C-alpha cells in the first residue's frame, strides 16, 4: 500500500467543523428524516384543516338556539315582521324566531312547561304582548337576549325607525392605531410561536443525530482526529444549515400557496421594522435561539447513550424552554416594562422577545445590542457545551461493577509483587 504525500498540517477548528458539518448536512439532506422534516408542516396543516373542517361540520350540525313566540295571532305577525326587518340590519345577532303557538283571545300558555316539553331547539319563549313582552328561559339566556327582545318588541310596535338610513361605507387603506397595535401584537405572537416551534424541532433533531452517532461508534474516530469543539460546532451548524434549507422550502411553498389563493402580505399590517428587516431579524433570532438551545441539547446528548435516555434528559429542558416561551410571550404583552427588559436580557428568552419587539417597535439599535449579547451567550454556551461534551462523550467503557473494581485493585499489587 504505497500512498503518496500526506497532509502537511492539522485542520483548524473551523476547517474541522466544516468537514463534520458538510458530512452531516449532506447526510441529513438526503435522509428520510429530512423528508419527514420537510413534510412535517404539511401534516400540521392537514391536521389543522381536517380538525377545522370537522369543527365547522359539528358547528353546522348543531342546531341554533331559537326564540319561541307565543302571542296572539296579530302580535305574532308583528313580531315576525319585526324580526325580519331587524335581521336585515343586524344579521345573525338577532335570534331566529319560531312560532310556538298563536294564542286565541283569553288563551294562556305555561312558557316554562312549553320550554321543557318542546322538541324544537328552543332557548327561550317570549309571551305577553309587544307592549309587555315576557321572556322565559334560563337566566343566562334571557339576560343575553333581553335587549334584543326589547328591540324586537319596539320594532313590532313601530317605535323604531320604519326606514333605516343607508350607511355609506368609507374604508381606509391604513389601519387605525388601535388596529395596528392589535395586529402587530398578533404578528409578534405568530413570529414567536414559529420561532419556538422551529428551535425546538431542530434542537431535537440535532440531539437525535448525535445519539445515532454515538450508536454508530463514529464519535471516537471524530474525537481522535479533531477537537471536540469542532465536532460540536460542525454538528450545530450542519443542522442550522439544514433548517435554513427546510425553512426556505416551507417559505417558498407557503408563499406560493398563499399568493395563488389571492392573498398578499399587504393584508397584514407591516411589522414596525418593516417586512424585509423583520424577516432578516427572524433569521438571525432563529439562528441564535437554535444555537443556544442546540448547545444545551448537544451537551445533553453527550450524557445520553440511548433514545430513551435522551427523552428523559431532554424533557426538563423542553419544559423549561416552554416556560421560557411563555415568559417571552407574557413580556411581549407588557412593552416597556421591567419584565420585558428581563426577557430581553435572559439568553434563552431574548430571541423570542426581540422578534416580538421587532413587530411592535421600529427602533433598530436594541436589536444590535441584543444580537451582540446573544452572540456572547452563544459562544459561552457553545464553549461550556463543548467542554461537557468532551468530558462526558468519551467516558471510557461501561461502568465497572464493584467486583471488577475490586479485582482491578487487587491485581495491581499482585503484579507489582511478581515483578
Amino acid at each position, binding site marked *: 500500500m504505497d500512498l503518496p504525500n500526506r*497532509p502537511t*498540517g492539522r485542520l483548524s477548528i473551523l476547517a474541522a467543523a466544516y468537514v463534520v458539518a458538510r458530512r452531516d448536512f449532506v447526510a441529513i439532506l438526503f435522509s428520510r428524516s429530512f423528508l419527514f422534516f420537510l413534510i412535517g408542516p404539511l401534516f400540521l396543516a392537514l391536521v389543522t384543516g381536517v380538525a377545522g373542517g370537522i369543527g365547522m361540520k359539528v358547528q353546522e350540525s348543531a342546531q341554533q338556539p331559537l326564540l319561541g313566540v307565543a302571542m296572539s295571532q296579530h302580535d305574532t305577525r308583528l313580531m315576525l315582521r319585526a324580526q325580519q326587518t331587524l335581521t336585515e340590519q343586524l344579521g345573525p345577532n338577532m335570534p331566529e324566531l319560531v312560532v310556538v303557538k298563536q294564542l286565541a283571545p283569553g288563551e294562556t300558555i305555561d312558557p316554562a312547561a312549553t320550554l321543557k316539553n318542546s322538541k324544537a331547539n328552543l332557548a327561550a319563549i317570549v309571551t305577553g304582548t309587544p307592549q309587555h313582552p315576557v321572556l322565559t328561559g334560563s337566566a343566562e339566556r334571557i339576560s343575553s337576549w333581553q335587549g334584543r327582545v326589547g328591540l324586537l318588541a319596539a320594532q313590532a310596535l313601530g317605535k323604531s325607525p320604519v326606514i333605516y338610513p343607508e350607511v355609506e361605507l368609507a374604508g381606509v387603506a391604513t389601519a387605525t392605531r388601535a388596529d395596528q397595535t392589535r395586529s402587530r401584537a398578533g404578528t409578534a405572537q405568530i413570529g414567536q410561536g414559529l420561532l419556538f416551534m422551529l428551535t425546538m424541532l431542530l434542537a431535537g433533531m440535532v440531539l437525535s443525530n448525535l445519539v445515532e452517532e454515538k450508536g454508530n461508534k463514529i464519535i*471516537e474516530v471524530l474525537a481522535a482526529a479533531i477537537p471536540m469543539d469542532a465536532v460540536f460546532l460542525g454538528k450545530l451548524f450542519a443542522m442550522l444549515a439544514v433548517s435554513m434549507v427546510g425553512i426556505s422550502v416551507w417559505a417558498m411553498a407557503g408563499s406560493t400557496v398563499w399568493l395563488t389563493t389571492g392573498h398578499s402580505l399587504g393584508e397584514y399590517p407591516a411589522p414596525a421594522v418593516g417586512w424585509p428587516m423583520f424577516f432578516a431579524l427572524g433569521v438571525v433570532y432563529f439562528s441564535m435561539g437554535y444555537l443556544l438551545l442546540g448547545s444545551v441539547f448537544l451537551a445533553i446528548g453527550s450524557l445520553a447513550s440511548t433514545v430513551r435516555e435522551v427523552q428523559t434528559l431532554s424533557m426538563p429542558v423542553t419544559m423549561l424552554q416552554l416556560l421560557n416561551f411563555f415568559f417571552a410571550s407574557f413580556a411581549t404583552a407588557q412593552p416597556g416594562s421591567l419584565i420585558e427588559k428581563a426577557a430581553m436580557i435572559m439568553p434563552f428568552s431574548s430571541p423570542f422577545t426581540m422578534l416580538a419587539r421587532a413587530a411592535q417597535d421600529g427602533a433598530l439599535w436594541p436589536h444590535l445590542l441584543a444580537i451582540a449579547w446573544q452572540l456572547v451567550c452563544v459562544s459561552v454556551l457553545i464553549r461550556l457545551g463543548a467542554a461537557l461534551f468532551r468530558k462526558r462523550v468519551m467516558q471510557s467503557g461501561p461502568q465497572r461493577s464493584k467486583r471488577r473494581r475490586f479485582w482491578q485493585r487487587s491485581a495491581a499489587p499482585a503484579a507489582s509483587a511478581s*515483578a
Partner: protein
Amino acid sequence: MKLGEWQMPSNAPAALNEPLAIEAPLAIEARGLVKRFDGFTAVDGVDLTVPQGSIYGILGPNGAGKTTTLRMLLGIIDPDSGIRRVLGHDRPHEVAHAIGYLPEERGLYPSMKAYEAIAFLGALRGLPLKEGRARGKALLEEHGLGYAIDRTIRQLSKGMAQQVQLLGTLVHNPRLVVFDEPFSGLDALNQGKLEKTIRSLAAKGTTVIFSTHVIAHAERLCDEVAIIAGGKVPFAGPVDVARDRIRPQVRLETRKADGPWRAALPADARHEGQFWLFSLPDSGIEPLLRALIEGEAGILSLSIERAGLHDAFVAIAGEAAARALEENPEEPS
C-alpha cells in the same frame, strides 16, 4: 522465581521532572499518565516511550487500562496528571494529520458509500476530499474490494466494513498508526492480512502502536511492548528484554544419574523424567559444563530455552492478570 538479580528493568519509573534519556527519536513519550473515572483509577502513572518506526504493543487483559491509555495519547481524553508527547507535540491534535487511529469499537456512517467513508476519514485528518475519494477508490481496488466501492457501509459485511475502516485509517499516509485491539473480531485469514499490513507499515518507517490481549500477536509483531495490568505498567521495553526478565531454562540429560557433578547444579534444579531442569545460573553455563565434564556425568543433551512472552507476562504482571488475559472477556478497557 527471583528476577531482580537477573537484569534491571529498562523502564524504571523516572520522576516527572527528570529528562528522559532519549537514544532514538521517539514517536510517543508519556510519563506518569493518570486517569480517573468517578473515583476509579483506570490508568495509574503510566510511562511509555515508543521509538519511531517501531511496532509497539500494549499488552494486558481487558479492563487493564489499554484503551484509556491510547485515548490519552491521542488526545481523545486528557490525563488527570502526567505528560504526553506525540510526534514531538504535547497536544496530540496538533499532529492529528500525521496519525491514524482504528478504535476498538469500530464505526462508520451506515449510509456512506465505502470510498466516501474512506475519504471522510482522510478529510478528518486534513486530506482534501477529492484526493481522499481518489485514494479511497484506489485502495479498495488494491485490496480486492473494488466491487464494493459504490456500496454503502450498510450493504457490507462486518468484516468488509472493518477493512474499509482500516483503509480509512491509513488513507492519509500517517506517520503514526494506533490500533486498539485490531485483531478482535477478525477471522484467522484477516488477522494474517492485518499482521502483514502492520509489518509493511513498519517497513516504510511508520510507527505502529497497538493494544492487544493476545500475547501471540504481540510476540510475533512487536519490537517493544508495554505490559499493563490494573492501570499500571510494570514493564515497558523491547520484547527480548521482557523475555530476559525470566532466566532461560536449562534442560540437561546425562548418562549417569548421580555423581560429584550434582553439587554443581543450581539450587532450583529438579529432576523430571530423564531431564534435569533449572534456571540458567548467574555465572552462565560454562562453570556447570566444566563440572559436568570433569565429573564424567556423560552429557546426552543440553539445551538452553529462552522464556516466551507469555512466561514473561506471568512473571511481570502476575498470575491474576495472566488469567484475566486468557479469560478474554469481551469488554472494553
